[in-house]
């Protein structure tokens, strides 16, 4: 089952996509895993809009949701310059612990079964396996 969304760089639109994804995946997951997907999608959408597209409404974010019996996969693509995920500082390092931002990627990686980047960092692929 696949669904596609294309939204402008607007957090309100992101909220609507987030809610659609939430209802689509809810029947397939435990409460804890549904929370995990919601957290990873929320953080990825905000990253795409704020850091990728720099809130430029003329730029879009594309979201592809694929649900299979084994897993849920979400591709989120922005139109920004891309980034290298290895350049993101570790927010749990003592010197970064009090920084007010920079925790999104850490949470995404923790909650997903697999996270990969394509297209020079413009696309993030989130995969959450379903427990057998």
């Amino acid at each position, binding site marked *: 089952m696949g669904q596609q969304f294309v939204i402008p760089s607007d*957090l309100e639109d992101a*909220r609507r996509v987030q809610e659609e994804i939430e209802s689509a995946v809810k029947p397939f997951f435990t409460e*804890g895993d549904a*929370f995990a997907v*919601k*957290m990873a999608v*929320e*953080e990825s959408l*905000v990253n795409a809009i704020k850091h990728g597209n720099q809130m430029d409404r003329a730029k879009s974010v594309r979201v592809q949701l694929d649900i299979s019996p084994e897993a849920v996969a979400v591709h989120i693509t922005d139109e920004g310059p891309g980034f290298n995920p290895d350049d993101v500082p570790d*927010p*749990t390092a003592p010197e970064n*612990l*009090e*920084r*007010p*931002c920079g*925790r*999104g990627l*850490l*949470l995404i990686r*923790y909650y997903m079964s697999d996270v990969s980047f394509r297209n020079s960092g413009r696309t993030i692929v989130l995969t959450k396996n379903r427990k057998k």
Partner: protein
Amino acid sequence: MSKPRRLEVEDSGDISVVNFVDKKILDEQNIQMIGDDLFRLVDELGRRKIILNFGNVEFLSSAALGKLITMNRKVQAVRGKLILCNITKEIREVFEITKLDKLFTITGDEQSALQAF
């Protein structure tokens, strides 16, 4: 149009107990308003002992964590104390993953938070 309230604050002696109106703390504008309301407690109302009760909160994003960190710093700057309580298992885990459970004082229920001052 008046600004919708995002926090409910009750004073118990010199301790302010803050409850969140929103179940989900993620919308940028809401987080900004929550931050402003929290900062006002310290900056304008001079509160030094503050409890944040998360009993109503089911979800929060990393942007909300940023505001809580700034709030914690603000309270520490006036030699006050900020305590977080009544946090769901899922949100508690968010604090643990980000190691913010080491930065904040977190207690179980509101009663234990009141006793922690």
